[in-house]
């Protein structure tokens, strides 16, 4: 049994690139020594604009349970308006982390027992030179800062590789400046 599996649930909208973001983290985690990495989109309901889920499990050992995450250690939300549509904290472990793309500050969100980190990824990504609405690389920077799980030295090359031919440097820059502008809240 993988007692030490870190489970991260990603909430985004169809077409927002949550799967790509989770895949980049998965690659970087594997390169960081996590031999067990599983990224599983939740299937069958993907529509552009509709709320979608992706499960990312990270462990030092091989992962055998491929079922969707029900009790995550961390939740990443690519669009803060989803919080009003979906119960993003469903099953989140006490003391768990929520990373939200939002112009608001962590203390503006009232989640009891959870740590909140916010970053205005939507604006920071535009600042990095990306077209409006591209948030999946910026959120990686926020995730790296808030979770402390994987270093930017590994994430930046992973982003450059994934976005080869698709504005790699601007995407990497979006992650970097989001990393530097992520606000961390404590436990309430």
């Amino acid at each position, binding site marked *: 049994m993988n007692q030490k599996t870190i489970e991260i649930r990603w909430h985004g909208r169809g077409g927002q690139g949550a799967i790509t973001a989770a895949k980049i983290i998965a690659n970087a985690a594997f390169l960081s020594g996590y031999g067990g990495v599983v*990224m599983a*989109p939740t299937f069958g309901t993907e529509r552009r604009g509709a709320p979608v889920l992706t499960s990312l499990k990270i462990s030092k050992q091989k992962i055998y349970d491929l079922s969707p995450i029900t009790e995550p250690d961390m939740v990443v939300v690519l669009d803060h308006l989803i919080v009003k549509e979906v119960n993003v904290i469903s099953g989140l472990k006490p003391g768990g982390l929520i990373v939200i793309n939002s112009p608001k500050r962590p203390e503006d969100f009232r989640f009891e027992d959870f740590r909140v980190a916010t970053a205005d990824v939507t604006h920071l990504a535009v600042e990095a030179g990306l077209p409006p609405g591209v948030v999946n690389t910026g959120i990686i920077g926020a995730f790296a800062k808030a979770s402390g799980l994987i270093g930017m030295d590994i994430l930046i090359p992973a982003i450059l590789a994934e976005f080869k031919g698709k504005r790699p440097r601007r995407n990497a820059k979006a992650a970097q400046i989001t990393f530097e502008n992520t606000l961390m809240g404590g436990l309430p």
Partner: protein
Amino acid sequence: MHIIESGNVAAASGVKLAKVQVIAAYPITPQTPLTEKLSEFVDSGEMDAQYIPVESEHSALAVCIAASSAGTRAFTATSANGLLYMHEQLQWAAGARLPIVMCVVNRGIGAPWTVWNDHQDSISQRDTGWIQLYCCDHQQIIDTVLQAFYLAETVSVPVMVCYDGYILSHTYMPFDIPEQTDVDRFLPPFSPAYALDPKQPANLNTVTLPDVRPDVRGDVAPGYMEIRHNLHMDMRAAITVAADIDRKFEDIFGRGGNPFIEPYRCDDADFVAICLGSLSYHLRDVVDILREEGIPVGVMGLRLYRPFPNQAVRNALSSRKAVIVFEKALSYGNQGALYGDIKSALYTADNRPIVHNYILGLGGREIKTHHLEKALRESCTAPDAIGDTPVWIGLKM
């Protein structure tokens, strides 16, 4: 080289490494990304193959039958109702002894319509004369695709490589992509004993009389029954061949050793769970939980389903207290197909275990660790309390 990709990309990578010459496929969820990847490989020139788009699965296999008859290495892939639509051609490919390899990305079959995983599609085709291999993770998918061509071409029987739709096909995990030079050392080019040639026209598989008779040269030619007996005997021989291929694969790639059954914590196990596909890996977590409670339980994944390795199953399971068969398919009106096969294999065992049958996960019904844990614990703690009829896990109404 290790990469993190989906199960469908693992399958496509294996097909590319096997230097397949003809691909014909019709897209169907959850197989679609596999065929898309192959068409990308062909389009970019990474694969020197003919990709033949077709209007249906029936035609996809018909094209592969023609391509294989002409002596080329042919591949197709499908799921669910697409596989059922091939049913007539499946039997033709087996009877014609064509070494086609097909990935079946396992999905439940309609009605009612579903796109999610179970095993009813491939299990329903078990008596078509195809070899069936099942995979538990992405490494097994790519490795099994390579082994499948070797096996098919050695015994002249087509092979299905089955892997769980979505659970494996759309999930990303790390796996090793073998080097082309190693694959070339493992898998020789396809050299058919006979290939169709326009310069020497021939009739193949024409009406065959019930009895043997002299052919045009005056030699006694086999009748239908002899031809079908040969198919059966070569299928049985495929069990030994599969073990040989596994050894050769392990020598080159360092992976293998369990061509028929992959055991986990079974050495001292009084109770053994057994199933097909990725579920056997999920059950490893459950075995670990029950082992901590002191329950002597293990799990086996059956890799080769047809031909059925009766002797290996008997060796692995006789003298256990109970064998618990978990299945994502059933023979309606009776029981799980694998359950019947396992009981049949154990009939001649000296010490016959109790055998239980659980049906679960149909049409993608989520399989939770605690559901598996509850069922397996009940089977281990009160084996006599569970009867001979399938018990359904996760029914809500």
